[in-house]
């Protein structure tokens, strides 16, 4: 009984029963030579002239069955049309209702049944497939955690995830979903962050690491201090962003919206005029049916919903349809060096003692000690690796750092216990009148050419050595540049505050097309503006505050590693949740595919209408054929958009490897 009820209320019940009635009608007409098809009443309908498909002269059982099919399938359409009409909306439902009622009045019962049946079944199919295009978001909503185990008064208590209080300790066990955003306070574990970053390889988490609600523990045990709950979690922000993005209209969409506002009433007027001029009621009704703008009105939304949802599932947040359209046109990408092409964690790589200083009794340790002592009071990012190395080697700076005078663009001058120590470039030494040491400049240049940042150390009046700090180039930086080119980006440009030599070395190693070095923040903005003047659509990738002006100027601002930053999720045009460089070419590729599917969809919709229109005036296209083709075009448009949900080829490669790995694991297990 329950199953029956569910079946009756399902969206397939009406079209299926209506379809069966149509089949039954054909059955009584043709089986046993029409013996099962008694006459019920004389003819009562209007004359359809040349279009009379009925053939018969009297009202028979088969006609009653056709009307029953039409009424069953058409009832909801009519109700919906009247509802829409009371709110002042002329919709597709109304076109279909008028056409079906008109067909019954002129005795084309088969057409009335066919049109309503096809519309109803098309509608059910549309609803089912449209939900699929939204599936990427539905998956995100589904990963939202339900319950949490919190530590209250030393006891484990299970509470709904939304009722965890800020600052409480939450326990995350193996296999459990992380219920809140928070910081690990103790324990270690592997967390699958695919729902946030799109990366399915679990990430090791230990004390003071950040974890996100909706990610899943794949082992270990973590105690997490809750810092974000419910709507204040990264997952909730992502879901919001995606929904807003899906609703944000693309430029093309606004045009189509305006178009369809006039289109539907326009079709009704056209049908009326055509009917009045030719006196052909069937022609007018057929025009109504084929004029349904169904495929046109959904052509863009389905593509955007699928494209943005697909991107979100891969850890790429795109702000909306308009940004999707702009991203598809990106021809130049500007990247900040530090933290983007490089890891952003500089290491001390070289300590060189100058020959002249060595003769005077300086050694490696002393150079390092002086350098560290000088940098002790500096806040420059390059100071940290020097100080850390000195501490590791037991010559770290102790006590209070001396007085520090930074010289912008050159280095720093300090006073260490009464000794003047300089650390910086050749111009700094010149400025302080230090005796020129030819070897110092040469060593510095050699190190710079290898992509390291050299700093000459001078004690009192003498240059004693050179220390060099280098930031590791990211493993996939070169691959990213290559894939950006493959995705149709003409120019990849590096913008950096670092020196020309360092920038060149890194540019060469990564295959960057153009480098701009020694830039101040406003210079970065100018570089982006210059690219735009050259006619490029520019995407800028950056993370630091010094990139902010350039990010704002670029056509598309891209934030990397955005999962940890609520601001980036809210403001970046494209936010890459994880720290994976290859997501950038993927985002551009996806934007291109989405926009091309939008265009294909508009083309499909318009061509269908034009061809059908021609078909009606040239003859041959009946109301039911029109509806069939029309519903077909709607489904084609949806199916086309669903292609976006499939994994692109570039992504399936690593999956294949992992599959192979798992097979080999299984093989080894079976052979044991």
């Amino acid at each position, binding site marked *: 009984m329950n199953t029956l009820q569910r079946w009756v209320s399902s*969206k397939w019940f009406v079209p299926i029963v209506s379809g069966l009635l149509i089949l039954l009608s054909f059955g009584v007409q043709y089986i046993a030579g029409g013996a099962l098809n008694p006459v019920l009443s004389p003819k009562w309908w209007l004359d359809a002239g040349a279009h009379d498909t009925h053939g018969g002269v009297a009202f028979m059982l088969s006609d009653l069955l056709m009307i029953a099919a039409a009424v069953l399938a058409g009832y*909801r359409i009519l109700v*919906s049309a009247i*509802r*829409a009409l*009371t*709110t*002042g*909306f002329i*919709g*597709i*439902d109304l076109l279909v209702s008028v056409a079906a009622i008109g067909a019954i009045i002129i005795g084309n019962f088969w057409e009335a049944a066919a049109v309503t049946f096809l519309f109803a079944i098309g*509608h059910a199919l*549309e*609803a089912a497939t*449209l*939900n699929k295009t*939204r599936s990427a*978001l539905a998956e995100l*909503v589904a990963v*939202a955690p339900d319950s949490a185990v919190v530590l209250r008064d030393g006891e484990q208590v299970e509470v709904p995830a*939304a009722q965890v209080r800020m600052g409480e300790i939450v326990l995350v066990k193996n296999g459990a979903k992380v219920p809140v955003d928070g910081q690990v306070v103790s324990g270690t574990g592997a967390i699958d962050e695919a729902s946030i970053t799109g990366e399915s390889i679990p990430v090791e988490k230990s004390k003071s690491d950040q974890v996100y609600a909706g990610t899943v523990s794949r082992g270990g045990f973590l105690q997490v201090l809750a810092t974000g709950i*419910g*709507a204040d979690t990264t997952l*909730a922000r992502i*879901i*919001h962003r*995606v*929904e*807003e993005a*899906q*609703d944000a209209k693309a430029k093309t969409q606004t045009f189509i919206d305006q178009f369809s506002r006039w289109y539907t009433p326009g079709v009704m007027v056209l049908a009326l005029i055509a009917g009045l001029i030719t006196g052909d009621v069937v022609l007018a009704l057929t025009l109504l049916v084929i004029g349904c703008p*169904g495929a046109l*009105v*959904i052509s863009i*939304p389905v593509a*955007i*919903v699928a494209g943005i949802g697909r991107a979100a599932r891969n850890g790429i947040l795109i702000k909306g349809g308009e940004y999707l359209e702009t991203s598809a046109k990106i021809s130049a990408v500007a990247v900040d060096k530090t933290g983007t092409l490089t890891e952003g964690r500089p290491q001390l790589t070289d300590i060189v003692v100058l020959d002249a200083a060595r003769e005077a009794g300086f050694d490696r340790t002393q150079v390092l000690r002086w350098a560290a002592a000088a940098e002790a009071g500096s806040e420059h990012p390059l100071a940290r690796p020097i100080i850390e190395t000195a501490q590791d080697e037991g010559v770290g700076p102790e006590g209070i750092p001396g007085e520090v005078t930074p010289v912008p663009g050159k280095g720093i001058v300090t006073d260490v216990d009464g000794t003047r120590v300089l650390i910086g470039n050749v111009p700094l030494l010149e400025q302080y009148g230090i005796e020129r040491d030819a070897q110092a400049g040469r060593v510095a240049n050699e190190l710079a050419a290898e992509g390291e940042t050299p700093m000459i150390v001078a004690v009192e009046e003498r240059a004693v050595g050179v220390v060099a700090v280098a930031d590791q180039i990211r493993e996939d930086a070169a691959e990213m540049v290559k894939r950006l080119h493959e995705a149709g980006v003409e120019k990849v440009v590096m913008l950096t505050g670092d020196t020309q030599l360092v920038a060149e070395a890194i540019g060469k190693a990564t295959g960057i097309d153009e480098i701009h070095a020694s830039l101040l923040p406003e210079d970065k903005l100018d570089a982006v503006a210059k690219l735009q003047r050259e006619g490029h659509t520019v995407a800028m990738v950056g993370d630091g505050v010094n990139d902010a002006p350039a990010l704002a100027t670029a056509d598309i601002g891209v934030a990397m590693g955005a999962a940890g930053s609520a601001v980036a999720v809210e403001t970046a045009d494209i936010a890459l949740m994880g720290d994976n460089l290859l997501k950038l070419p993927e985002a551009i590729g996806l934007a291109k595919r989405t926009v091309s599917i939008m265009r294909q969809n508009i083309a499909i919709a318009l061509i269908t209408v034009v061809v059908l229109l021609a078909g009606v005036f040239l003859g041959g296209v009946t109301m039911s054929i029109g509806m069939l083709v029309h519903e077909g075009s709607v489904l084609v448009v949806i199916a086309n958009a669903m292609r976006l949900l499939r994994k692109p080829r570039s992504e399936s490669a690593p999956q294949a490897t992992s599959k192979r790995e798992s097979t080999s694991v299984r093989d080894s297990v079976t052979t044991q």
Partner: protein
Amino acid sequence: MSAATTTHTTLRAEGFSCPSCVTKIEKRVGKLDGVDDVKVHFASSRIEVDHDESKTSVDDIVAAVDKAGYKSAPSAF
């Protein structure tokens, strides 16, 4: 109409198949007593309602959306 009594409810719905659903639902929910504002998003099939909880409950809104022909469920965010 003060902000203190207004609740913001987000519903996620199923089966939006054409943009005319938007008008239908907005009118129907908007007619409910105590509903200040209703916004239906077609693409993400979301319904956002500002309402006075004492006059119209979340269940009333779900029922109204159901009458317009669509299934929906309230969502935490």
